């Protein structure tokens, strides 16, 4: 297991809180990982530094602080594998790029198979991944037992482990450090980061968006870039644009700090649990989404209960662990479980949303791809397949198999 050093000391100062100017070349709505990364790459790769990142709450306090930090690229379809692998490659050099520690740990991600359908789907995905040059492998129960000794690979569990896919280069990172790293680097290049600025409306002239109305005043803009994840539909409703997304609460939880017992990320789509152990020692587990749409950043307890039951079956050793806290983020899910990246009907407005339950892993990748899309005024080649037009053309990128709930 390769782990990046010790946690850095908590810094005193990373970026300056900006007062909003009257206008910017690019206004990014959403100060999470995607928004901050987009701002950074706009400045770094395209020399566009007159940029504001508007955050309705505090920086990185939405889904960026609520995910389970899993990073992988083993998606089924070519289009997905290409953009997620682009992201994974950027993760591999991100600490040097941002000159900050993000605790990126390529400890490998295991996706378990519990039935014949899982085995077929998993092997198909491994084959597809290998054709795309990804480091995917199929492991049998014995190999999985050696890799993760605390996992029950006997035939005792209700859903026994029959095999699994493994991507060794996949892993986890410390989400807060990623957000702060991008914020610091973007700020150093001249980007304004404006917190507590909730967007309440838009001013438009003809087919252009000319300004955003916010809780901190009206801000003019040259180009608008939405990066608001689960809250995107609320913004596009105000622009008069409909998107095929549904916002659901997605829950996760951590245990108290425990001895290190797990140095691999283990996911199981069939029983709806995914778990890793953070550097400090807490078990980080993700659950499923609530079926209904919701914006309350909390989910139903029965979802957590099912997830715990599944975790207990797979990892009997967890029986004595205590849940420290649970929370939810609001994830925007599309009909094909793939993101929407590209232009809105307005001439100078762009959208990046629909990453559903799996946006964290895409942070560097989408930041660079979205910045390029905004700077050049046309979709980046990796973004082309993810345009809004695919729902009309029927060219969906169905990643429910690779993504499911455990994205």
């Amino acid at each position, binding site marked *: 297991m390769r782990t990046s050093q010790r946690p850095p000391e908590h810094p005193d100062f990373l970026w300056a809180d900006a007062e909003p100017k009257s206008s910017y070349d690019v206004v990014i709505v959403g100060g999470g990982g995607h928004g901050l990364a987009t701002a950074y790459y706009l400045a770094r790769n395209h020399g566009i530094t007159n940029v504001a990142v508007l955050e309705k709450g505090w920086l990185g306090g939405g889904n960026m602080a609520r995910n389970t930090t899993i990073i992988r690229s083993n998606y089924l379809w070519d289009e997905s594998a290409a953009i997620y692998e682009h992201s994974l490659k950027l993760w591999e050099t991100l600490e040097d790029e941002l000159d900050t520690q993000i605790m990126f740990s390529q400890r490998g991600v295991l996706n378990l198979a519990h039935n014949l359908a899982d085995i077929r789907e998993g092997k198909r995905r491994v084959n597809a991944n290998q054709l795309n040059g990804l480091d995917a492998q199929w492991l049998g129960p014995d190999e999985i037992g050696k890799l993760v000794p605390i996992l029950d690979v006997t035939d005792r569990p209700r859903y026994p482990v029959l095999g699994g896919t493994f991507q060794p280069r996949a892993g986890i990172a410390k989400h807060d450090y990623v957000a702060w790293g991008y914020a610091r680097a973007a700020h150093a290049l001249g980007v304004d980061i404006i917190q507590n600025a909730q967007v309440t409306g838009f001013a438009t002239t003809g087919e252009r968006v000319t300004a955003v109305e916010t809780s901190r005043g009206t801000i003019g803009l040259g180009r608008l870039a939405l990066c608001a994840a689960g809250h995107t539909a609320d913004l596009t409703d105000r622009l008069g644009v409909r*998107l095929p997304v549904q916002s659901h609460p997605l829950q996760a939880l951590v245990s108290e700090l425990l001895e290190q017992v797990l140095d691999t990320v283990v996911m199981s789509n069939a029983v709806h649990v995914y778990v890793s152990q953070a550097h400090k020692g807490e078990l980080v587990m993700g659950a499923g989404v609530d079926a209904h749409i919701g914006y*309350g950043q909390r989910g139903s307890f029965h979802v957590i209960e099912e997830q715990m039951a599944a975790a207990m079956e797979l990892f009997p050793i967890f029986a004595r662990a205590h849940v420290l806290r649970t929370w939810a983020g609001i994830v925007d899910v599309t009909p094909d479980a793939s993101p929407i990246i590209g232009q809105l009907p307005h001439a100078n407005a762009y959208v990046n949303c629909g990453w559903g339950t799996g946006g964290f892993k895409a942070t560097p990748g989408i930041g660079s791809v979205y910045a390029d899309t905004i700077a050049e005024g046309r979709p980046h080649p990796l973004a082309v397949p993810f345009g809004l037009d695919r729902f009309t053309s029927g060219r969906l990128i169905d990643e429910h198999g690779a993504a499911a709930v455990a994205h």
Partner: protein
Amino acid sequence: MLRISCPHCGERDETEFHYGAESGVAYPPDPSALSDEEWAAYLFFRANPRGWFVERWFHAAGCRRWFDLERNTVTDEIRPAEVTAR
């Protein structure tokens, strides 16, 4: 856990129900007459509002009937919708 009032069976746990998203999306009377845009709108695009929302639920572990419910998507408060059983 939501407590949902089925108009036929009374208040039950959320786990007895399945979710059906936006209410009032009727099957197009002549699907083959639709343009690609209209078909996409019917098939994929559903309202996703913050606040009060009329949505469909199916009482799978009870009367197995669909009904409408009005729920606040921020606070999860529930009140009966005007239209009920279909």
